[in-house]
């Protein structure tokens, strides 16, 4: 990446980058005040339905899959949408460790077209500084040019306490403060190999809206933590980026990649992950958190019960 290009991207990312920990106004409630709405159980008619579009244009694939899934009917006019891509690492899009920026931008545009009043792209980057990571991934610029606010939750004060009453192992944790203001939450993971959890997909991507990831990794059962956490997150849509996937040396790479050129859309977060796991030659049961999420009633993880619609 050329320096001028990098600095340009970094500038865009910094310019668009809100740092809530620094910029919070006096009108904001103190840490701990308020809470997320209770995460509703997935309606029966949405369970197990997965929509898969394949093609060389990620934006076109996304639009086709979202249309097939019934559109963004859950986005209220003037409402706030929070999108969580995987932008954790200082990696370029071709390295397949982060969500394709074209896909993130396309999602932003779809939400605005639907009537959203504000779209926020949020990430708690692992590499730092966050502005550099968002620049290198291409997501900072792509999202802001599409009309989103880009927020990097780099400070503990960017998170609020979260109760996890349906969790088996986890009973409380933290969640990005911005989600308290969201009417809609859309998860946009990158499908990739992960040395600790076999694969990182949608449910795993939710770790990036929590403050202390280390506690999960060093705890007794990472898979159960991932599934437990998802029970407390009001999630409206999962869009798995499988345009290019990372096959080895995940989650950061660099490693071997493959190009399924697929965009996977589902209201059922477990079904989205279950289908995505097959792109790696795995069964959903090979990924511990998928089975545990199904046990918790979050969705359908059994391939035989999935309804996959190809568009």
């Amino acid at each position, binding site marked *: *990446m*050329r*320096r*001028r*290009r*990098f600095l340009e991207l970094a500038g865009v990312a910094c310019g668009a980058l809100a740092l809530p920990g620094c910029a919070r106004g006096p009108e904001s409630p103190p840490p701990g005040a308020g809470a997320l709405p209770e995460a509703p159980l997935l309606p029966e008619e949405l369970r197990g339905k997965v929509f898969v579009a394949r093609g060389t244009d990620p934006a076109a694939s996304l639009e086709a899959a979202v249309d097939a899934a019934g559109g963004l009917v859950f986005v209220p006019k003037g409402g706030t949408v929070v999108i969580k891509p995987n932008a*954790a690492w*200082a990696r*370029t899009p*071709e*390295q*397949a460790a982060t969500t394709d920026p074209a896909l993130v931008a396309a999602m932003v545009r779809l939400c605005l077209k639907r009537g959203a009043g504000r779209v926020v792209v949020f990430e708690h980057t*692992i*590499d*730092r*500084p966050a502005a*550099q990571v968002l620049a*290198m991934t291409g997501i900072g610029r792509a999202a802001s040019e599409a009309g989103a606010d880009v927020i990097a939750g780099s400070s503990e004060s960017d998170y609020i306490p979260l109760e996890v009453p349906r969790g088996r192992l986890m009973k409380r944790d933290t969640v990005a403060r911005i989600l308290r203001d969201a009417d809609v939450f859309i998860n946009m993971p990158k499908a990739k190999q*992960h*040395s*600790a*959890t076999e694969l*990182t997909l949608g449910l795993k991507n939710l770790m990036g809206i929590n403050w202390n*990831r*280390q506690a999960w*990794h*060093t705890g007794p059962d*990472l898979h159960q933590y991932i599934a437990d956490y998802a029970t407390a997150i009001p999630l409206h849509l999962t869009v798995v980026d499988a345009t290019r996937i*990372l096959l*080895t*040396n*995940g*989650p*950061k*790479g*660099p*490693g*071997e*990649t493959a190009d399924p050129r697929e965009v996977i859309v589902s209201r059922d977060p477990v079904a989205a992950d279950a289908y995505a796991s097959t792109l790696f030659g795995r069964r959903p049961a090979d990924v511990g958190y998928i089975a545990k999420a199904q046990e918790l009633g979050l969705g359908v993880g059994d391939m035989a019960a999935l309804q996959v619609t190809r568009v």
Partner: protein
Amino acid sequence: MMLTRPLIAALLLAAAGASLAGREDLLKVAPDRINAWRAVADATVYGRGDGIVDIYNGGYEDYTRAGVTEALRRMYAQGDRYVEVTAHTMTSSRAARSFLADRYRLEMKAAPPRGAFKRFAASGSGSTTAYAVEGRYFLTVVVYGESEAARNQALGFVKVLEQNASRLR
């Protein structure tokens, strides 16, 4: 009970001292400047034990299981190029050599060369990674490119890190 508190305090101080010393050593391997390269401000991450999760996230267990005790990651910039460096301290030079061989098998899908094998480079998907060992230090350099020039750049950079590490032995 009266002896317990001073003992705990001494142990905590010793642990903090060891951590500080370990970080300082790794900063000598990957200093603020390497020739014309400068470390990017605020992009340095250090981890010790389970703290290595700050560098590798879920991948960190592979490193700790192999014997990595500490690691330091830095991003360097020179003109229009960027390079990512990670220096790892391992439990022994033997563990470092073994880990290098493991990485070779993983990346090259082949058995590592016999003899004094201490570095290699692998390219793919827009990047080149150079791996090397020097004593108990395991070193990686990621360059954003797959060309021959990128490979030479990665290998050249990792050789400088090896020289820096050799002075710590």
